[in-house]
């Protein structure tokens, strides 16, 4: 039988070390909402989401109470809207109307974000894909809870450089459209290489076309738990360090698996995956950067950071994989800047640059995340940063992403406040040299040689 020490250990993780379930995300297929008439399509989308997700928040709250574990977010992801609106949207404004419907239904069912205002254009763009992308600045400024993502490349298809160029411009436009709120729109917009179909985390969650009608995906977290466990093994060798991370990740993930199964049972929706991510928040102690410091770095960004992050990411996966029957999504360690107090401190101290962050993304689970840059950064420069990140994903057969915020009206050294889970960020300098001629070439970068596995 469970003993008091074990019960206390679990409850200390929850109460003192910020262990939580970061999100229960229902993935909902909207493929059956496709209609040639926009009004009908909007109605079908509204009712399908409302019907499927109506009990999500109440169920999440009930699980939270019965197990005594906080479930921070309840969210929805839907089929990429470029596919759903293609038949009835004839201009970007039509797509934006669908975004407004998503926002309304998100508010109605009480979720804090709805993801899937997305297009998958890793090889080419359909007319609908292009229109959706062009509508993103509008959609994100009209809505509050809608998140948008665009998949620009993959190991199998290469990188769609036309779309990379376009997204540089769209990110700038989104920043302009939402400049009153410190360009907050860009915090809800992410571009991917090798985007996963079952990601429960925002802003990149969408419900892939290969998924079932509805599915429950859960994202666990717990950087504070890992850091506290590591405090107890200071000065020990790497074997001890790695074993400690692995065991801790196992425990954290087991909670996610339990919550996912319970939610699935209560909602009558199949369980999809648990995403084993270490996702930080601005809360003190809930930081991935602090884990890197505990491993032995003065600041995140110091020499050794990439190696420390690589082992952290790998051990989290090794521990988590055994704890869950199905693992998916992004699974690893997130390294957002604004959402992680340790990262913010490292940037403020001058220890962490965009270039070092880029190196770190080679071994972390996602990419350049929640990075504020000067508002006057050129669109082509943003496209260049995106292209670099996509190349890392493509060649290393991993997911990479860019969520970057050119804060209109602000420059290096200033701070931007997004509020809540999104935190605040010091504005980071960007390499000033031009990549215009590179970005303006057009076309696509072919898939790498090692993608030909057939």
């Amino acid at each position: 039988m469970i003993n008091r020490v074990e019960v206390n250990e679990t409850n200390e993780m929850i109460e003192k070390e910020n262990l939580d379930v970061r999100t229960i995300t229902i993935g909902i297929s909207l493929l059956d909402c496709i209609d040639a008439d926009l009004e009908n399509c909007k109605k079908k989308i509204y009712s399908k989401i409302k019907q499927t997700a109506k009990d999500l928040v109440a169920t999440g709250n009930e699980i939270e109470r019965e197990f005594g574990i906080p479930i921070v977010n309840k969210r929805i992801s839907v089929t990429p809207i470029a596919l759903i609106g293609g038949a009835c949207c004839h201009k970007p404004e039509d797509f934006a109307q669908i975004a407004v419907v998503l926002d309304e239904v998100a508010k109605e069912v009480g979720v804090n974000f709805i993801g899937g205002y997305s297009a998958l254009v890793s090889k080419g763009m359909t007319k609908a894909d292009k229109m959706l992308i062009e509508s993103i600045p509008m959609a994100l400024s009209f809505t509050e809870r809608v998140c948008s993502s665009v998949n620009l490349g993959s190991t199998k298809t290469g990188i769609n450089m036309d779309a990379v160029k376009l997204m540089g411009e769209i990110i700038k436009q989104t920043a302009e459209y939402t400049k009153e709120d410190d360009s907050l729109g860009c915090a809800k917009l992410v571009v991917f290489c090798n985007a996963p179909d079952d990601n429960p985390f925002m802003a990149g969650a969408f419900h892939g076309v290969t998924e079932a009608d509805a599915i429950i995906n859960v994202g666990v977290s717990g950087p504070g738990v890992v850091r506290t466990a590591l405090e107890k093994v200071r000065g020990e060798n790497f074997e001890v360090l790695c074993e400690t991370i692995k065991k801790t990740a196992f425990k954290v993930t087991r909670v996610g698996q339990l919550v996912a199964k319970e939610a699935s049972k209560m909602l009558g929706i199949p369980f999809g995956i648990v995403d084993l991510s270490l996702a930080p928040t601005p809360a003190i102690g809930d930081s991935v950067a602090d884990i890197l410091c505990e491993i032995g770095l003065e600041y995140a960004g110091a020499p050794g950071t990439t190696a420390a992050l690589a082992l952290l990411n790998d051990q989290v996966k090794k521990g988590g994989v055994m704890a869950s029957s199905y693992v998916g999504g992004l699974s690893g360690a997130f390294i957002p800047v604004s959402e992680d107090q340790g990262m913010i401190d490292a940037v403020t101290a001058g220890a962490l640059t965009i270039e070092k962050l880029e190196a770190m993304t080679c071994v972390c689970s996602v990419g350049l995340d929640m990075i504020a840059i000067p508002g006057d950064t050129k669109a082509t420069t943003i496209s260049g940063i995106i292209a670099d990140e996509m190349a890392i994903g493509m060649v290393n057969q991993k997911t990479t992403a860019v969520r970057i915020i050119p804060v209109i009206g602000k420059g290096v050294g200033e701070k931007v406040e997004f509020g809540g889970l999104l935190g605040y960020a010091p504005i980071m300098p960007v390499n000033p040299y031009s990549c215009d001629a590179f970005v303006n070439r057009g076309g696509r970068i072919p898939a790498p040689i090692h993608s030909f596995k057939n």
Partner: protein
Amino acid sequence: MKKTIITVVGKDTVGIIARVCAYLAEKQINILDISQTIVSGYFNMMMVVDRTNATNSFGDMADEMEKVGEEIGVVIKCQREEIFDKMHRI
């Protein structure tokens, strides 16, 4: 069997166990195991209870136990056993 773990933590005082047990008896909740200790004046108890015949809902029990805790100056938490079981047992 619907096992629930009740933990009570706080400054030691007379009648903590009595109050908790009286509440559980009233609601037909059966106590399976009690383990308790006092570390430097702090009371730390874990109870395993069975809610199979309980006359109230889990939510009500959790709320009411919390209130009892407030009255006697301790923190009382009710959680289903599975969260501990899953985390500490393969």
